[in-house]
């Protein structure tokens, strides 16, 4: 295992050609303790080398143009108050629940790690083994996803992750696997690394809810085998003053389906990156997010940065990102579709929209298309706008109170993103949660 003290010293020593993130990196590595050996060892060592070479991002990095990496770079997170836990999302649904507290798997609070057609372990318990099915994926999809730009925080995660889940699905597991996060320490700095592998024809729904840490860095690596179907719905806890960076690295094989939806309701600063490599013919990959940011609890900044690679024929990709912003909240979307030579009959779609509920908020979008095949259909669109005053008046003229009318219009703005959740029970649960939150907010405002 690479000695982190040495790494830190090296990072600090290259002062003459110092890169912006070097001091930050040295400080991060300085406080690091790495697990001993195991099947992740090679990947972690490789990550150490790569991170050394690329450094952490600085404010001048093009890829970090709209989001300041300083808080992610810092050696320690600031303590962040723990929001009351009223989360009841998905609890009515028959599921396999896995609990993490401050980034550690809590076996006692979790369901038994067993089910028909599925192998589940937590990383910390499994990684002592030298041989493991996840050895071929841990840090490998992440490394393959270091394009078209460097994603140092994902590398840092591969290097430092303390725990996570490893799921291998061979059949159709009848119930979703639900990862529930809890916080107990106000300053927990959490690094989790999940690896999911769906074998040919397998099916899995993965749910994530809760609050991970004062600062979190989560990587999810997913391989969706031929004809397999993967559904992912994540909804981090509302109002938690979180600072989070997340990466999804997916490889989607032929005729497979990948669908990921994320809900964010307030928080502080979040950046979600996704690299989806559509590697087999006739595959489908959708990624969507609904974000509600009200800067009233402090600064709100939310960045989605997506890279979709079409490397095969007749594949479909769809990106739907909707952000509702208020009180100087900032929303960012950077989305790129790459269609490689030979990826004929690609159908790529991307929409990003910001709904600004006041003048101080802003939505920044940077859509990109890079196409090297001639028989493809790709479209992208981005809009930023305020609430439709005419629609608002129409609703009010029928007797719908203003606050309620705004809730209806916000929900209608988000509808296309929510539509990306296939399972109706999950969608209704999310919708109910959103509606409650918006209504409660509207009520508070009415009183203010």
């Amino acid at each position, binding site marked *: 295992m690479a000695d982190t003290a040495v790494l830190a010293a090296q990072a600090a020593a290259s002062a003459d050609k110092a890169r912006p993130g070097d001091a930050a990196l040295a400080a991060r590595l300085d406080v690091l303790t790495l697990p001993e050996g195991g099947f992740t060892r090679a990947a972690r060592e490789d990550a150490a080398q790569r991170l050394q070479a690329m450094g952490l991002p600085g404010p001048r990095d093009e890829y970090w143009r709209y989001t300041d990496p300083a808080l992610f770079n810092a050696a320690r997170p600031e303590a962040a108050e723990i929001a009351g836990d009223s989360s009841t999302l998905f609890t009515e649904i028959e599921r396999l629940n896995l609990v993490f507290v401050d980034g550690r798997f809590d076996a006692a609070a979790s369901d038994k790690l067993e089910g028909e057609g599925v192998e589940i372990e937590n990383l910390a318990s499994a990684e002592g083994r030298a041989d493991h099915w996840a050895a071929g994926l841990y840090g490998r999809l992440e490394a393959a996803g270091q394009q078209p730009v460097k994603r140092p925080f994902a590398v840092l995660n591969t290097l430092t992750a303390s725990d996570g889940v490893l799921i291998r699905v061979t059949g159709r597991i009848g119930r979703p696997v639900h990862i529930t996060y809890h916080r107990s320490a106000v300053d927990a700095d959490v690094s989790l690394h999940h690896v999911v592998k769906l074998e040919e024809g397998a099916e899995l729904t993965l749910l994530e809810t809760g609050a991970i840490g004062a600062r979190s860095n989560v990587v999810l690596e997913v391989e969706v085998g031929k004809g397999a179907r993967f559904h992912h719905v994540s909804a981090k806890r509302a109002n938690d003053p979180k600072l989070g960076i997340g990466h999804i690295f997916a490889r989607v094989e032929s005729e497979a389906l990948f669908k990921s939806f994320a809900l964010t309701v307030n928080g502080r600063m979040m950046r979600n990156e996704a690299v989806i490599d559509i590697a087999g013919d006739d595959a489908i990959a959708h990624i969507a997010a609904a974000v509600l940011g009200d800067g009233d609890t402090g600064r709100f900044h939310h960045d989605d940065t997506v890279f979709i690679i079409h490397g095969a024929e007749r594949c479909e990709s769809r990106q739907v990102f909707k952000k509702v912003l208020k009180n100087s909240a900032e929303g960012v979307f950077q989305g790129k579709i790459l269609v490689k030579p030979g990826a004929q009959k690609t159908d790529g779609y991307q929409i990003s929209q910001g709904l600004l509920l006041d003048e101080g908020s802003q939505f920044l979008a940077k859509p990109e298309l890079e196409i090297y095949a001639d028989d493809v259909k790709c479209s992208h669109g981005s809009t930023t706008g305020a609430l439709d*005053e005419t629609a608002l*008046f129409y609703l009010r*003229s029928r007797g*719908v*109170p203003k606050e309620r*009318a705004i809730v209806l219009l916000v929900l209608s*703005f988000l509808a296309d993103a929510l539509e990306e959740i296939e399972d109706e029970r999950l969608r209704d649960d999310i919708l109910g949660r959103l509606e409650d939150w918006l209504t409660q907010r509207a009520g508070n405002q009415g009183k203010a």
Partner: protein
Amino acid sequence: MLEIKNLHVKLEDEDKQILKGVDLTVPAGEVHAIMGPNGSGKSTLSYVLSGRDGYEVTDGAARLGGQDLLEMEPEQRASAGLFLAFQYPVEIPGVGNLTFLRTAANAQRKARGEPELSAADFLKLIREKAKTLKIDSEMLKRSVNVGFSGGEKKRNEILQMAVLEPRMCILDETDSGLDVDAMRLVADGVNALRSPDRAFLVITHYQRLLDHIRPDVVHIMANGRIVRTGGPELALEVEQNGYGDLLAEVG
């Protein structure tokens, strides 16, 4: 029911006076029609009465059943029994017609201290009303006015009116864009709602609608004022001679 006195209205952001002293009283149980050239201020009057932003009342008053309308929020006016069938009904993608109408109906009931309708009762009510207006249930499931034809939108306005049962109904050119049969349906819808406790103000350009909905009084609006008031024969006069002679008379 509706009393408008010396109403002066200008645009909020522009120095443009649109209503220049409108006087109009519509007693309960009556149907009044307003006709008048394009741009004379008919829609503006209906918007100001229902509380749309963008206008500034510089003088005058408007009361509904004795209550000061101009002091109220749009939703309060609706709960007080005012309804405007829009000249251009608004499309609201993502909000279902049924959800919209049920939210509106129950919000009004709540504001008036009446019990809310259960989902089942509401569905029964709306199905029955939709049937008489020949609006099929598939349309009810769609987003508000999205993908509706011009005529369907107008019928949807009348459906809302039938469900909400307001006491003061303003119809702004509900007849324009309707085919002959749809016009008859709309007129039947309005006639079915006529009652001693309810009043109508029907804005129209054509005598045809007034053949079906017999007005008690016809007003002519021009240049931000009511310039003539008379019986149904006034509408016939407009139909035959246009506004030229009428306005020349007024000077």
